[in-house]
């Protein structure tokens, strides 16, 4: 069984919401659409207070090379464009829409008929994807259309589809593969056409045998697409780890995956691409897992962007009393939220309620040099050393110890027997070293 070669851990999977059918979350009464939802520049609003919008109406335009369009997830009236606390805990600009009915833009095809034939040309596909505001739905939220246009001189050979979902608890991709397998595979053929490759490989960890079997059956009707089962290991869903696992190539430090001929897209992204290209549907809703050990009914929900998390939690049985920490995303890389009023964004793959007993970090002790962080590191760097150099502000040493290679997967901190805040310090070091590197240019 294939997997990546360096480091890795196996945290308890806790896939509480596995095999739970995707339910449609109720519409919010008010949608809060954050303007900065993707990696890169926040979008520029094209509506103003009082504008009437339909579901799918363009709300804000991409404002730079790395940026994406935003569409209204609900129909109604824009009541304000104001600052709002988002998942980062800081106030950011958002468009607030009071919901009236559920009127969709006419151009959107709301039927469930599967459209296999791809009429759009390569350029049209990329334009449609850009127009629809699609970003990487695995969590990084990098605008998809940019990834589809490799830098000059580089050619992609293979499209890798990330169906790994290696974060504990999360099941949204798994359930999507089970329910929308056909659409995903058509989405993959669209992406293949856009990139100009004739080979695609879907990587799925073998803790999802049903998804592997289901997609294998579907891809048998297509040429050039295969399913690659992978041994369960975190962080296999990391782009670099996935490429290593599937095509046995490693992306050189500081370069893009296309350097080794690979383009990686997430399962959810492939589905969004299908909807955008074949159904004219912009990205304004997604699948999100609402989960946690004390959550009454852990769910996979299809929810509109801009829905306050509190409403999704209520739908799944309400906020458990013992909740001490709420994480947007999975437990390894997700962000702790300051409140449940934070709205859903394009990158919201999950919402995890952590009970009190597991929410507190344990007492930090001396490093005992056990080397477990070194063994766990999926980038083959030395977390203990990076923390030590960052703690002492030794930025040059941190840089030469390859601190910028860190993908912040958290494996080092997960295994540390002394509960050392390795990743906290590495993040600090990355910020400092990154600034130093940029100032040299």
């Amino acid at each position, binding site marked *: 069984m294939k997997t990546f070669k360096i480091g890795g851990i196996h945290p308890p999977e806790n896939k509480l919401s596995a095999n739970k059918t995707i339910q449609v979350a109720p519409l919010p009464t008010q949608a809060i659409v954050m303007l900065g939802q993707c990696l890169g520049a926040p979008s520029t609003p094209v509506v103003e207070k009082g504008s009437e919008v339909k579901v799918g109406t363009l709300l804000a335009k991409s404002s730079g090379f790395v940026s994406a369009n935003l569409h209204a997830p609900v129909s109604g009236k824009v009541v304000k464009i104001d600052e709002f606390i988002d998942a980062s805990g800081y106030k950011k600009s958002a468009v607030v829409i009071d919901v009236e009915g559920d009127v969709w833009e006419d151009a959107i095809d709301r039927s469930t008929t599967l459209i296999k034939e791809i009429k759009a040309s390569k350029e049209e596909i990329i334009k449609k994807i850009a127009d629809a505001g699609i970003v990487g739905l695995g969590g990084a939220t990098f605008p998809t259309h940019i990834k589809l246009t490799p830098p000059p001189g580089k050619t992609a050979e293979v499209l890798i589809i990330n169906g790994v979902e290696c974060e504990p608890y999360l099941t949204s991709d798994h359930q999507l593969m089970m329910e929308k397998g056909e659409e995903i595979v058509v989405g993959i053929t669209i992406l293949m056409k856009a990139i100009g490759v004739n080979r695609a490989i879907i990587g799925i960890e073998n803790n999802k045998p049903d998804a592997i079997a289901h997609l294998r059956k579907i891809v048998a009707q297509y040429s050039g697409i295969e399913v690659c089962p992978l041994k369960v290991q975190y962080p296999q869903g990391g782009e670099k780890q996935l490429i290593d696992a599937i095509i046995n190539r490693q992306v050189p430090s500081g370069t893009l995956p296309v350097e080794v001929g690979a383009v990686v897209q997430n399962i959810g992204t492939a589905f969004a691409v299908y909807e955008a290209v074949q159904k004219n549907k912009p990205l304004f809703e997604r699948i999100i897992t609402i989960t946690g050990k004390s959550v009454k009914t852990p769910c996979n929900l299809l929810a509109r962007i801009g829905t306050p998390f509190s409403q999704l939690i209520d739908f799944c049985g309400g906020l458990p009393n013992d909740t001490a920490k709420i994480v947007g995303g999975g437990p390894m890389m997700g962000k702790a939220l300051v409140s449940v009023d934070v709205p859903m964004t394009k990158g919201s793959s999950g919402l995890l309620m952590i009970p009190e007993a597991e929410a507190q970090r344990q007492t930090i*002790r001396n490093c005992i*040099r056990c080397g477990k962080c070194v063994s766990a590191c999926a980038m083959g760097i030395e977390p203990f050393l990076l923390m030590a150099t960052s703690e002492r502000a030794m930025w040059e040493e941190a840089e030469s110890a390859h601190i910028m290679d860190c993908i912040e997967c958290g494996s080092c901190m997960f295994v540390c027997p002394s509960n050392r805040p390795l990743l906290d310090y590495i993040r600090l070091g990355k910020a400092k070293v990154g600034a130093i590197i940029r100032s040299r240019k």
Partner: protein
Amino acid sequence: MSKFIVSPSPHIHSGNSVQKSMYGVIVALLPALAVSLVFFGLGALIITLTAILSCVIFEYVIQKYLLKGEPTILDGSAILTGLLLAFNVPSNLPIWMMVVGAAVAIGIAKMTFGGLGNNPFNPALAGRVFMLISFPVHMTSWPKPEILPLTYIDAVTGATPLGIMKEGLAKGDSLTNIMTQIPSFTDMLIGKMGGSLGEISAIALLIGFVYLLWKKIITWHIPVSVIGAVAIFTAILHGANPQAYAGPVFHIFTGGLLLGAIFMATDYVTSPMSKTGMLIYGTMIGVITILIRVFGAYPEGVSFAILIMNAFTPLINKYIKPKRYGEILK
């Protein structure tokens, strides 16, 4: 609005802790302790309890009254140091010597450097070598194994297999002749031979090794490279001159080699952190051990070999780096 804990990811932890690792190693040492209690009886019990108690008390007193900090004796590291220290001495050692050894191990080798995690040398081995140099007679007179003996200081003593060999070779005896005087291979496996308290039973130590691997407390790299280096080195010597040099089986199953390779060389704090580093470190320990045993003045060299390589650990950590992702393509 309710308040939530906000901290950066990761939000879950493996539950691994210093205590779990330390108590895991202690559990892995229990089979060997049981064998010692059988063959060395009361002496083994007195020495083990003295060593553990002294180490824990010294650590507590130093942390509480000298360093004025929070004592961390419950993390199990002082208990482990005490146990390992006891394992490395003859079971008829006078109590006061054991206490002095514990004071050196904890006071000098561990706490002066800042406690657990900061000590450059394995505390138990530092204590043991201090005792070996300071009390050479007591540290090299081993009681003969009996079944549950109640003798302690006045136990009947005899030499270890390594001692018998060293002495015999020095007298000009042939190896074939010497080999008739040492315990049978079965006795070496179960531990019916002279030696330090915890080093005698190969089987018990190997059971501990399997437990440590199963609990993922250590990896195979250090023990296997130590034992492998000893096997290869002694096989070459034995092949070159079978009458002067004993073979791999003798060297692996006698003395403190297994105890050292499995439990002392693998000490987290004083061994390298990368797998390649561990292999280099282990190989060098094996080579130095045999150099001392065969060409040196002492019949046994495991402790010195490990301490010497402890000194090289920072250097190994600095120059031997783990294989980095994406490096191979450069």
